[in-house]
C-alpha cells in the first residue's frame, strides 16, 4: 500500500517520515567522496601525464588512449581477460551447480561434503595462489609427482611455464577456490524449489534427469543469472593469481586487464595512462555486463 500523501505532497507515513532521509546523508557522503569522486577523477587523470607523485602535471589530450591502443597491450590484456572469464564462468558454474544438486539430495555426511566444498573459498587468494604454484611446480610439484607415479614424465609437466596453458592453469585455481561460493548460492536456490512441485513431476512420471531439467533448473533461473553475472564480474577483474603465480608471465600470456593497469600505474609510474586504461576497461566491462544481463533476463523469462 502506498503511503498517503498530504495536499502539498508531503509524506504522512508514521513509519517512514521524510526527515528520516537525513540519516542517509552520512552514508551518501561517504559514497560520494570515496567512490563517485575517485571514479570521476579517473576520467580527469586519463588525459594528463600524472605520475602519481608530482601534482604539477600537464594535460596531454588523448595521447594516453592513443598509446594503449597502438602498442597492443590493450588487445592482449582484453583477450586474456575474456579467456580467463570464460573458463572461470563456465567451470565454476557447472561444477558449482553439479555439486549443489548432488549435495541437495539425501546422502550421508551431507554437512561434511558441503563444508568441504566450501572450504577453499575460506582462504585468501594469496595463500591459495602460493600453494598452487607448488602444486603446479615441474618435477617435484604435487601433480608432477602424481604423473611420475603413474609412469608419466613429471618433469615435462609445467603448466605455468607454458605460453598456451598458463592462463588456463591460473583460471583453474580461481575455479577451485571459487566454486564453493557458487555452490552455496545454487544450494540456496535449490532449496526454495517446492517439494510439492517435484512431487507432482514424479506423479507425472518424470525421472530424476527430467525433474532437474524441466522443474528444478527453470525454478532457479534467477539464481543462475545471479551466479553467472557474479562470476563474469569476478572473472573480468582477474588479478590475484596472475600477480601471485605468474606475474603476468610467461611473457605477456597471463596479463589481464587489471594486472596491466597495475603494472602501468605502479611499475611504469604512469598514472595517467593507467587511468586511460581503466576508463577503457570500465566501458568494456560495462558493455559485457549489460549484454550478459539482457541475455540472461530474456532467458529467465523463457524458462
Amino acid at each position, binding site marked *: 500500500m502506498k503511503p498517503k500523501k498530504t495536499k502539498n505532497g508531503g509524506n504522512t507515513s508514521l513509519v517512514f517520515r521524510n526527515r528520516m532521509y537525513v540519516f542517509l546523508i552520512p552514508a551518501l557522503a561517504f559514497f560520494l567522496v570515496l*567512490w563517485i569522486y*575517485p*571514479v570521476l577523477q*579517473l576520467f580527469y587523470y586519463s588525459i594528463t*601525464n600524472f605520475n602519481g*607523485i*608530482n601534482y604539477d602535471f*600537464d594535460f596531454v589530450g588523448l595521447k594516453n588512449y592513443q*598509446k594503449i591502443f597502438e*602498442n597492443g597491450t590493450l588487445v592482449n590484456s582484453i583477450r586474456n581477460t575474456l579467456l580467463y572469464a570464460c573458463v572461470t564462468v563456465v567451470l565454476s558454474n557447472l561444477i558449482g551447480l553439479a555439486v549443489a544438486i548432488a549435495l541437495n539430495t539425501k546422502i550421508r555426511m551431507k554437512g561434511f561434503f558441503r563444508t568441504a566444498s566450501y572450504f577453499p573459498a575460506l582462504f*585468501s*587468494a*594469496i595463500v591459495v595462489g*602460493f600453494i598452487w*604454484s*607448488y602444486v*603446479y*611446480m*615441474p618435477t617435484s610439484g604435487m601433480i608432477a609427482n602424481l604423473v611420475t607415479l603413474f609412469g608419466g614424465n613429471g*618433469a*615435462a609437466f*609445467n603448466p*605455468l*611455464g*607454458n*605460453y598456451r596453458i598458463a592462463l588456463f592453469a591460473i583460471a583453474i585455481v580461481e575455479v577451485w577456490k571459487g566454486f564453493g561460493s557458487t555452490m552455496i548460492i545454487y544450494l540456496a536456490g535449490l532449496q526454495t524449489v517446492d517439494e510439492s512441485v517435484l512431487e507432482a513431476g514424479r506423479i507425472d512420471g518424470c525421472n530424476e534427469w527430467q525433474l532437474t531439467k524441466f522443474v528444478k533448473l527453470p525454478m532457479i533461473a534467477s539464481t543462475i543469472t545471479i551466479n553467472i*553475472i557474479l562470476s563474469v*564480474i569476478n572473472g*573480468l*577483474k582477474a*588479478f*590475484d593469481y596472475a*600477480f*601471485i603465480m*605468474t*606475474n603476468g*608471465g*610467461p*611473457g*605477456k600470456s597471463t596479463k589481464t586487464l*587489471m594486472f596491466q*593497469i*597495475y*603494472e602501468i*600505474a*605502479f*611499475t*611504469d*609510474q604512469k598514472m595517467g595512462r593507467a587511468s586511460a586504461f*581503466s*576508463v577503457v*576497461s*570500465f566501458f568494456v*566491462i*560495462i558493455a*559485457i*555486463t*549489460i549484454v550478459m*544481463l539482457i541475455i540472461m*533476463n530474456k532467458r529467465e523469462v523463457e524458462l
Partner: protein
Amino acid sequence: MKMKKILALLLACSMAAMTVAGCGSSQSAETEAAETEAAAAEAQEEAEEGEAAEETIAAVPEGEGYNHEAIANAGDITLTMMVSGVAQGNDFETEQLPELVKAKWPNVTLEVTKLPDDNYYTSLKTKLASGECPDIILTQPMYAGSNSCYALAEAGYLAPLNDCDFLVNLANPAAVTYDGNVVTATRSVSILGTYYNKDMFKEVGIESVPATWAEFLDDCKKLKEAGHQPIVMGDKDQYVLQFGLYQIAANEIYSQNPDYDMQLRSGETHFTDEGTWDKVLTMYKQLYDEGYIDASQSLGYGASQSIQDFIDGKAAMTFDGSFNATALNAEGAGGAFERGYFPIPSESGDQYTATCLAAGYSIYSGSKYIDECKELIDYWYNGDNEIWDAQLATGRIIPVYGSGMDSIPNIELYQPFIDLMNEGKAFHWCNQAWPAGTESTMEELFSEMIGGQGTTVEDITQGMQDKFEDLLDE
C-alpha cells in the same frame, strides 16, 4: 518488474565500475599481501650500484672543507632523519642509532622515522615539496626508485658531500655522484654473481672457476654430460633474468663504455646498437639453447623454488645476488656441500662485476644543520666506532672497508667481488640507470624468446628501446 530490471542493471553496472575504480585501493591491499613474493624482487630493485657516470668525480676529499666543530658549537640541537624499511626488534636506525649518537654527543637528539617503502616515497615527496624535509634521508644510487639520488639531486634537494672525510675510503662513488657532486653517503654493496656447488664441480673434474666465457660454457657442458643440471633459474619470477644478464652486461657493455646508460638518455647510444645488448642477450640465450638452463622447466619455477633446487644439490649453479646468500647457503636435501661464488666471466677474460653501491644517506640541501650532519656521517662512516659496529651487527650490509669486515657472514664469498670493485672493475646494475619498467620489457620479451614464441634478439633490443623512450617521454 521493469523497475527491478533497471535496478538490477544499475547494480551490475556499478559493480562493474567498482572493479575498475576499486583497482586503485584494493590492489594496494593485494600488493601488500603479495609482498612476500615481491620482497626478493625489491631487494634487487633496491639495487644499487656501481659506477659509470660520465662526469669526472670531483670527490677529492678536502677534509677541512666543512666545520668539523659544528656539533660542539651548536648547543642543544635536534637532527631529523627519515629512512625506509620495516622496523625490527631493537632496530638499528630507530632505536640504537639515536642512543649511540646521544652517547657520543649529549647535545644532539636524533629523531628517526622509519616508513614502509611506499609510504616513504610519498612522505618524502610531500616533505620535499613543502620544504620540511628531514635533515638526513635515505637515497638510492643513480635513478633507482623514487628516492634515487640522481633525480633528487637534479631537483636540487641534496647537499654536496664532496668535502666529507669518508670519501677517502670509497674507491668509486660514481653511482652517487651527480654533476660532479657526491650526494649520497654509502659504503656498502650488493653483488650479483654465480653461486656454485664446489663438490659437483670437483666431481666432474673442474679444478677452478672459469676465467672466460668459453671456459664457462665448457664447464656447463661437462656438468651436463655428467648428468647434472648445470644452472637452475626461477624464470617464472621474471626478474631473476636480470641476475645473469647484468653480469654479462658489466663484462661486455660497460667495460667498453662506462657511460653507456647515461648516453642512452641523451640519445648517443641505443639498446639496438650493435655489439651491446644484442651481444649480451645472445650470450645469455646460448645457455638456454644448449640446455644449460632448462627453459621448459625454469619458466615454471619460482625464484624460491630454484634456490631450493640449488641447495638440494639438484643443480650445479644459479645466478643470484648477495641479498639471497643466507637462503643459498642453507642446508638442503642434498646435504652439506661447499659453495662458491664467482662473477660470470667475460669473452675476453677481462673480468668485471655487477657489484653496486647500496642505498645510503643524503643531507637535505635546505637543512639548517648541514655541517652537523656531515660531522655525524663522517664519524659514523670512519669504519671504526660503535655506530659502525652496531650497523654491521645487523648483518644486512656488506661494507667495502672498515673494521669488522671479517665477521660479515659469507665474506669469503664476497671478497673477490669487493676486490674487483676496489680495482674499479665494478658496474652498477643496469636497471638502476633506466627508468623503472624498461627491465620488465626486457624480461618479458626474453621469456618469450626462450619460451619459443618466435621473439628474436632484435625484437628485444627494439622493445627495450621503445619502452625506454616511452618512459622518458613525459
